[in-house]
């Protein structure tokens, strides 16, 4: 408690004395070109870039101490962010409330309309996929959304805005960077049926609390989350030998059409049939834990799927995880050479999660992905090995694995700086931070992320977005980044104001080159920015510069 107080005070004093810090940094030495770029590197990789004054703050705190603080986000005061998020009502709601009050009314309304107008698109994939999406070209403008539709869209809109505001304003930057990483690792897609109603709780309860915590706990929280159960279909994963419907709880067996369910239990699982669904089991092995070359077979996929039979939920009634013994395959299973005895019930799948979390392939897979995220698209094998060892030693303590990577000589090596391309999210968030922007609404940026190929919560495949640069270097995306820079500089993003846009052009030029680019730019970029005659051009040319696309 005492210790925390001291640290908080220290942070606070650093925060309120930027000018002193800046002074000490600039007088500290001219060898600070390198010290400055060390701080810039740390802010680029462990945060969403530098805000005005951040470089000096990090240098004043000292890089090791700053990293240590970031590894303990609970010690960082984040009340300024909380104030910005205070108006978002849905962020704190439980899934049951979101489904009942925000999602279901829109579904009922649509069903009613379909009854009147006849059937249209399938329900499984339709729905408001993007709260900011304009009507497609050549389609007559849709009528204004009803109250129910507005509420349904609000959930994802608030979540998307909050994600951006956290990236821009949270003091707990590493936690936000890691939340982005781990959400993407366990990607779910808001465009699939009711998934969008479950993602608020998924990110808040299954991902964010665990990003510096225990891998096994995060894995378990994800496995039990309605978002993952629905997105990868495990809620419909049913033992092939599930007992006959009427006898148990209404699970419809056989190829015939579902009969009218008689009791409440049968209503809940009506339409479900016997037989496994491999979707979650395969991605659990390939993407979440072992990695595609982690040494599993098709038989393992089938056995893992069998272990997870009966892990289900009721999509529109509470949408909470429960284990349905009647749907579970009670036979023995063999997974990765380990026998899981018959009759384990819900424990079968927990045993599988234990096995997977403790497997050496998982340690390597997670270590490699984190090293790729923080260090290099082609991470040094020795670092991956050390981080994987730390994963095994600590039984998946992610704070320690992360610490191993971000305090490593490989991470701090000068030759990895600016070698990674910023993802679109990193690009827009770092642009807003660098320009000290006041973001009163982030919705225009949510739209920009779609243009840049990275719509939030709308990555359809379970693989998530690519981390490596290849995916993000395309002509269209680069042009879109330049256009975003122009919009930002020109004040054409509604509700977003760049700081300093009323002052001297020269002052802005100087400040941006120092803060956004850490004063480390090519002569060409410097000359190009020097020729700019307006605020708009200065911002656009710095944010759109080759140097700013990298981290």
């Amino acid at each position: 408690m005492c210790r925390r107080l001291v640290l908080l005070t220290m942070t606070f004093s650093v925060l309120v004395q930027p000018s002193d810090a800046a002074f000490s940094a600039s007088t500290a030495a001219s060898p600070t070109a390198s010290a400055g770029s060390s701080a810039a590197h740390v802010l680029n990789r462990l945060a969403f870039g530098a805000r005005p004054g951040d470089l000096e703050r990090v240098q004043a705190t000292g890089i090791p101490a700053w990293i240590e603080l970031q590894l303990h986000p609970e010690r960082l005061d984040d009340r300024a962010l909380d104030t910005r998020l205070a108006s978002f009502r849905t962020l704190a709601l439980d899934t049951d409330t979101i489904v009942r009050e925000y999602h279901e009314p829109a579904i009922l309304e649509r069903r009613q309309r379909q009854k009147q107008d006849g059937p249209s698109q399938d329900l499984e994939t339709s729905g408001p996929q993007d709260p900011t999406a304009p009507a497609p070209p050549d389609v007559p403008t849709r009528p204004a959304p009803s109250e129910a539709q507005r509420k349904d869209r609000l959930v994802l809109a608030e979540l998307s805005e909050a994600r951006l505001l956290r990236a821009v304003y949270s003091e707990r930057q590493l936690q936000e960077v890691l939340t982005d990483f781990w959400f993407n690792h366990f990607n779910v897609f808001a465009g699939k049926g009711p998934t969008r109603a479950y993602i608020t709780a998924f990110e808040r309860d299954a991902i964010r609390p665990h990003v510096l915590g225990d891998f096994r706990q995060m894995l378990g929280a994800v496995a039990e989350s309605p978002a993952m159960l629905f997105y990868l279909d495990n809620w419909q994963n049913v033992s092939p030998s599930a007992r006959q419907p009427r006898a148990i709880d209404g699970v419809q067996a056989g190829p015939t059409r579902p009969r009218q369910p008689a009791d409440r239990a049968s209503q809940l699982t009506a339409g479900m049939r016997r037989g496994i669904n491999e979707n979650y089991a395969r991605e659990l092995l390939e993407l979440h834990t072992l990695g595609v070359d982690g040494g599993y077979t098709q038989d393992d996929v089938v056995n893992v799927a069998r272990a997870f039979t009966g892990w289900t939920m009721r999509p529109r009634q509470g949408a909470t995880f429960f284990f349905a013994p009647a749907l579970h395959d009670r036979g023995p299973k063999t997974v990765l050479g380990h026998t899981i005895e018959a009759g384990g019930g819900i424990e079968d799948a927990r045993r599988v999660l234990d096995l997977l979390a403790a497997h050496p392939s998982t340690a390597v897979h997670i270590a490699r992905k984190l090293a790729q995220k923080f260090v290099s698209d082609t991470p040094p094998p020795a670092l991956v090995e050390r981080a994987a060892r730390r994963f095994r030693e600590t039984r998946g303590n992610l704070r320690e694995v992360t610490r191993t990577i971000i305090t490593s000589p490989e991470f701090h090596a000068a030759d990895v700086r600016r070698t990674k391309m910023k993802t679109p999210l990193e690009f827009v968030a770092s642009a807003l931070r660098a320009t000290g922007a006041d973001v009163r609404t982030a919705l225009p940026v949510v739209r920009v992320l779609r243009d840049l190929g990275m719509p939030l919560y709308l990555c359809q495949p379970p693989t998530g977005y690519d981390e490596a640069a290849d995916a993000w270097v395309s002509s269209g995306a680069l042009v879109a980044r330049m256009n975003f820079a122009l919009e930002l500089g020109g004040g054409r993003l509604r509700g977003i104001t760049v700081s300093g846009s009323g002052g001297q052009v020269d002052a802005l030029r100087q400040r941006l080159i120092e803060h956004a680019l850490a004063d480390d730019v090519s002569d060409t970029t410097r000359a190009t920015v020097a020729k700019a005659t307006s605020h708009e051009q200065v911002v656009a040319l710095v944010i759109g510069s080759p140097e700013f696309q990298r981290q």
Partner: protein
Amino acid sequence: MFPRRIFLRSGAMAMISLGCAPSFLARTIAAAGTRRKLLVAIFQRGAVDGLNMVVPFGEADYYRARPSIAIPRPGREGGAIDLDGFFGLHPRMAPLEPLWRAGHLAIIHASGSHDGTRSHFDAQDYMESGTPGVKSTGDGWLNRYLQAREGEQGAPNPLRGVALARQMPRALQGPAPALAMTGVSGFGIHGSASARTSFEAAYATAADHVLSGTASEAFDAMRTLERHRAATGARAAIAADYPGSPFGQAMREIASLAKADVGLEVAFVESTNWDHHVNQGAATGQLANRLDDLARGIAALVRDLGDRMSDTLIVTMSEFGRAVAENGSRGTDHGHGNAMMLIGGAVRGGTVYGAWPGLTPEQRFEGRDLAVTTDFRDVFAEVIVRHLGASRAAAGQVFPGYAVDPSRFRNLLVA
């Protein structure tokens, strides 16, 4: 030249509206050699269920394995469109039926990769790198095609290879210039001319060669497209009804690029959301809606390109097929062999190619999936050699580690 083209296009459209098939094949000879060949590659991401797209209704095992999702035999309600007495098209692919009847659509069934992976990511990677089983390949096969013939083309032109996508797909990644863009009309710097000049200058001399190269391709393409716009005054008229979906709109952009004569040789477009583990439906439902979008998008492009189809080849592909048997949720899990489609003037269509391995459990790959009897590289190699006119040696460069052998070509295309 111009009036003639219009005449031919309206002619083709008139025939379609009369219920006849377009017969651009007849004009192949007249147009041969006058225009650049165009390949339109359509990637169905997520692994389409090839057994419901091109239905083996002659197989009793097909119906045994799929009690709730099978497409009924032709002639029944919601039944397949009979192609040859054994295979049928999904009923929602009716827009492609005239092309089949006219001999412009060929199907290669039980095709795919001999690598047995059921990972979407790996299988897409293999199909796009063109090197199944090898993950270290740096570039994609379509980019290697562009590389192999770069010397023949004069000045480098990034508009030779265009992906209608926000990200550059693996297939077009590599050293040869290529573009990823979502549309022709919006492609440009939305600011003053001086902003564009400044950006161009900053990137032209950047030490960052990757970004500098990408930017240079983008600015070159902007200039080319502007010249074209200045020459034609306006965007080419849209001559067909494309679906409003992202796929339909991407197909429309391809047509407008093709008609602009800016040197487009390889176009890549994605059709997504084929991964139906749950309630995939049969004659109607999720898969049916996706196939409807696909078929209407293809049919619209064919109509729109009119007589240009004599120089155009459309190829569809998907990373792997799906299990023969439906799963416990009226969907299908990941499988192996799949069906590809070829559409164009030089296609020897009206035939389902490939050795059919059968669907009894013992005939299946690993006891569960459609086996692969045609390596997708044999199809791609034939496309490169016979349609795009590359030499065998060039085709060899495109598929490293694989002996391109015309004796394995399925003779899908007029030689």
